[in-house]
């Protein structure tokens, strides 16, 4: 029995695992494992290369994780052969217990028994004295086959599909039988499809012309993007050999794949357009309130977004290790909760309402101190708020530094779904869902709450609302606070998909204003339509032109022309007033 003293947290992981399994199971190995160990041990000491390969291939029938692990260890030179004084060659696994004399103890590969001399004491071995279990190319090919088979029976369907794809790409006719056998047993639809693709791939190299034609047809039907190059080769070969039927089949398949590719690209572009439209929407929705409903040109809107983003950053640090801020030479320390794991991941849930609140408070302060004097002078509110935005940018720089700060995305935002070759990133899906939620909440707040009623009343007819006893000053303040809070939400949200720095707001302010103007001032629904439209247009142009900047310039041009056609935006708020 090997004592725990030999187990170290470092060294060969596999060796540690073997040691552990020995501890856990003692000498009583499971029969299946025992069989694998015996086969591998036998293969290692076999001298004939063909026989060795045959033994290894025999493992494919087992395809247990253990055989894979042992073979990998073998391939990487992790197994050794110990020759006893009697001339017996024993495959061994060294334990990670190197001592001062560079010697190690070892266990037998076959039964995990410690290597002992006749007296029953553990044998200490010098690595240099041992023969490394070697591999040649035939053997490595055999190992690869076993690995492929193992991958094809992996419990995770995604890995099975990936394995099928890899095998197919090799176009090795020897694998055909295996693939077909696996396909019969496979239950998962996506994997069966992958296997079908792999088989067709292999069949492209088939000796039988009919099989090749059929393979072309299958690949075309499946819309197999990776097979394009292979099909082109087949097409060229068929043309050279004068095989009209095969050439036609390959051409048809390529056309099918090309049209599938168009669909994939279009759907991908639409999805990206939807998500970048959602980003715009989130950045602009607060502006749709302050500018659209209240008529205040708030150039500091971008900085309110940044307030939200930095709030998220601070919350993250409070959940983490805490932080130190030193604006204007004063230093103060924010304590950290040192949360880890899923508790830390929760920081974002806490950051969302806090970003809203912080930005709303800053917005209310701005409204009380500057904007309320300028309701009658919109151009001047533009200028004053621009001054505020300069001051705020500089304050951010002095507090958080001029460089971008690191905001971690929760783990559940990285990753993606692939549906029919179209990639759906989770963060983009999140973007869209978040935007939809914000729009719904804004709509509900404006249409289903008493405050919303007051807001709409004051924005439609201030004097009349005041006559009915509405405190218009207070409603102004709350409306502006609400719009600013939405900007803060946008900040929390943008911190998850881009950099957070003092200039973050400036990146969005022009786009946000454009969105609101195109949508039609005073109409939230118009903002939604225009944000999604601009996002789609932007992404499509990028896709067509292959150049983001040029696309953006064209979008700006398109917006200017669009306003020629509809100067008041998509949705016009009709009014009898002459100057509106």
């Amino acid at each position, binding site marked *: 029995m090997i004592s725990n003293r030999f187990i170290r947290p470092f060294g060969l992981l596999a060796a540690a695992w073997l040691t552990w399994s020995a501890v856990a199971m003692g000498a009583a190995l499971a029969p299946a494992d025992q069989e694998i160990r015996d086969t591998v041990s036998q293969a290692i000491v076999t001298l004939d290369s063909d026989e060795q390969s045959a033994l290894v291939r025999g493992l494919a029938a087992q395809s247990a994780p253990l055989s894979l692990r042992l073979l990998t260890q073998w391939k990487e030179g992790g197994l050794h052969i110990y020759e006893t004084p009697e001339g017996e060659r024993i495959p061994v696994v060294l334990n990670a217990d190197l001592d001062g004399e560079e010697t190690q103890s070892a266990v037998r590969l076959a039964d995990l028994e410690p290597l002992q001399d006749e007296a029953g004491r553990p044998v200490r071995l010098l690595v240099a004295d041992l023969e490394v279990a070697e591999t040649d190319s035939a053997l490595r090919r055999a190992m690869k086959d076993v690995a492929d088979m193992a991958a094809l029976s992996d419990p995770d369907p995604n890995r099975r599909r990936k394995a099928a794809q890899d095998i197919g790409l090799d176009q090795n006719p020897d694998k055909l039988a295996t693939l077909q056998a696996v396909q019969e047993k496979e239950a998962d639809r996506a994997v069966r499809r992958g296997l079908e693709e792999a088989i067709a791939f292999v069949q492209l190299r088939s000796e039988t012309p009919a099989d090749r034609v059929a393979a072309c047809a299958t690949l075309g039907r499946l819309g197999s993007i990776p097979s394009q190059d292979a099909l082109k080769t087949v097409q060229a070969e068929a043309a050279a050999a004068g095989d009209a039927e095969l050439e036609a089949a390959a051409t048809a398949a390529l056309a099918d794949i090309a049209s599938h590719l168009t669909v994939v690209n279009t759907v991908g572009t639409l999805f990206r357009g939807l998500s970048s439209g959602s980003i715009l929407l989130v950045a602009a929705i607060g502006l749709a309130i302050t500018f659209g409903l209240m008529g205040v*040109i708030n150039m500091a809107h971008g900085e309110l977004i940044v307030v939200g983003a930095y709030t998220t950053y601070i919350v993250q640090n409070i959940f983490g290790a805490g932080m130190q801020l030193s604006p204007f030479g004063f230093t103060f320390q924010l304590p950290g909760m040192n949360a880890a794991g899923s508790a830390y991941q929760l920081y974002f849930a806490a950051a969302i309402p806090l970003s809203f609140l912080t930005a709303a408070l800053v917005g209310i302060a701005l409204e009380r101190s*500057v904007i*309320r*004097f*300028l*309701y*009658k*002078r*919109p*151009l*001047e509110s*533009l*200028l*004053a708020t*621009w*001054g*505020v*935005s*300069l*001051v*705020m*940018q*500089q*304050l951010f*720089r*002095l507090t958080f530094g001029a460089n971008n700060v690191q905001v971690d995305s929760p783990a559940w935002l990285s990753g993606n779904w692939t549906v029919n070759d179209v990639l759906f990133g989770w963060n983009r899906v999140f973007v869209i869902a978040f935007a939809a939620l914000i729009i719904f909440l804004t709509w509900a707040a404006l249409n289903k709450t008493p405050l919303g009623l007051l807001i709409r009343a004051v924005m439609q007819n*201030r*004097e009349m609302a*005041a*006559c009915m006893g509405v405190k*218009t*000053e207070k409603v*102004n303040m709350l409306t502006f606070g609400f719009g600013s809070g939405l900007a803060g939400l946008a900040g929390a949200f943008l911190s998850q998909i881009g950099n957070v720095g003092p200039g973050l707001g400036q990146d969005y302010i*022009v786009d946000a*204003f*454009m969105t609101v*103007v195109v949508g039609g001032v005073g109409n939230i629904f118009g903002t939604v339509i225009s944000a999604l439209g601009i996002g789609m247009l932007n992404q499509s142009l990028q896709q067509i032109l292959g150049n983001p*900047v*040029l696309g*953006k*310039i064209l979008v*700006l*041009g398109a*917006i*200017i*022309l669009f*306003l*020629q056609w509809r*100067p008041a935006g998509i949705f016009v708020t009709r009014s009898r007033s*002459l*100057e509106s």
Partner: protein
Amino acid sequence: MSLPLSKRELAGFIVAAIGLCILMPLLNAGGVVDNFTLNTWGKYLCYALLAISVDLLWGYTGLLSLGQALFFSLGGYMMGMYLMLMIGDLGVYARSGQNPNLLPDFMVFLGHTHLPAFWKPFFSLPFAILMVFVVPGVLAYIFGYLAFRSRIKGVYFSILTQALTYGAALMFFRNDMIMGGNNGFTDFRFIAGADVRSPEVKRTLYIVTAVIVCLVYLGCKWLTTTKFGLVQRAVRDSETRVLFSGYAAANYKLFVFVLSAIIASIGGALFVPQVGIINPSEMTTERSLEAVVWVAVGGRGTLIGPILGAIGINALKSWATRAYPDLWLIILGGMFVLVVLFMPKGIVGLPAQFKALWRRIRPPAAEPAPLPEATPAAVVPAETPAAK
């Protein structure tokens, strides 16, 4: 035609013109004013032209254009193209023999071997000067025609000009525009055959700038006192009434827009040889807004205000960015807020404001900066509409 200046204004103008155009260069030639100071003043005067162009639109016509920095840089770029071609065989690549066609360095760096066709005419200074007028003028005409035809006004006009500037800056940042990309143009050597870095040339450029500022001042002063100027201000105060009176307000606005684009462009064209660099960061909305600050602080709706504002704030900036680099933006932004809230007429309007204040609280001395009438005027209707 009589001079559009009152006697006092005329006297002030003559003193200022003699001081700027004759005295300063003389003092410089005599060694009293050093070259750096003179050059800095030349820069301020270019900014003054930009400020006048903003004021002509904003102060007199009620159009807040955030695109003036674009026109300013366009003028600068036109002049810069000429200056780039004048470098000739003194460029880095030419000296190491890798530039047989004597292209500007950045083109060689980007792998061009021949001068693009649109660059070729810029070997001629008169052509470059012509383009300083034509390019911004045409752009302003097209944009203005589209904008004013569909009656885009007020903040919408501001936001659209902001988008125009933003789009143009994005374009100039691109290398395949062949306009120097990110780095723009720099390392100028000669202008009209003379070394652009020598004190004599710099002095000449300063004199030209000062004279042009005086001429533009006089021209604008004249324009604003004619019937045209009257309609212009009427458009600012109530465009609808102007329309109902039978004036094509759009044409007036278009003319002012093109004119101010050209004034800004001249400012830029004079700015580049004196400062020695032009790049797309001059083309941003922030630059336009900075020019608006100069006008607001100096006093909009006057012509002397923008000049005072441009010189004053830039002098303050030169000092503050050295003394308090971290605080400059806060000073600028804070000043802007205060001016908008409490000094709607800027420095030029201060005497009148103080006079009004003096009349209200006669015997005791005036407080330094009390709330002006703007505050109650804005608050009262909101609070007491029921009383109407």
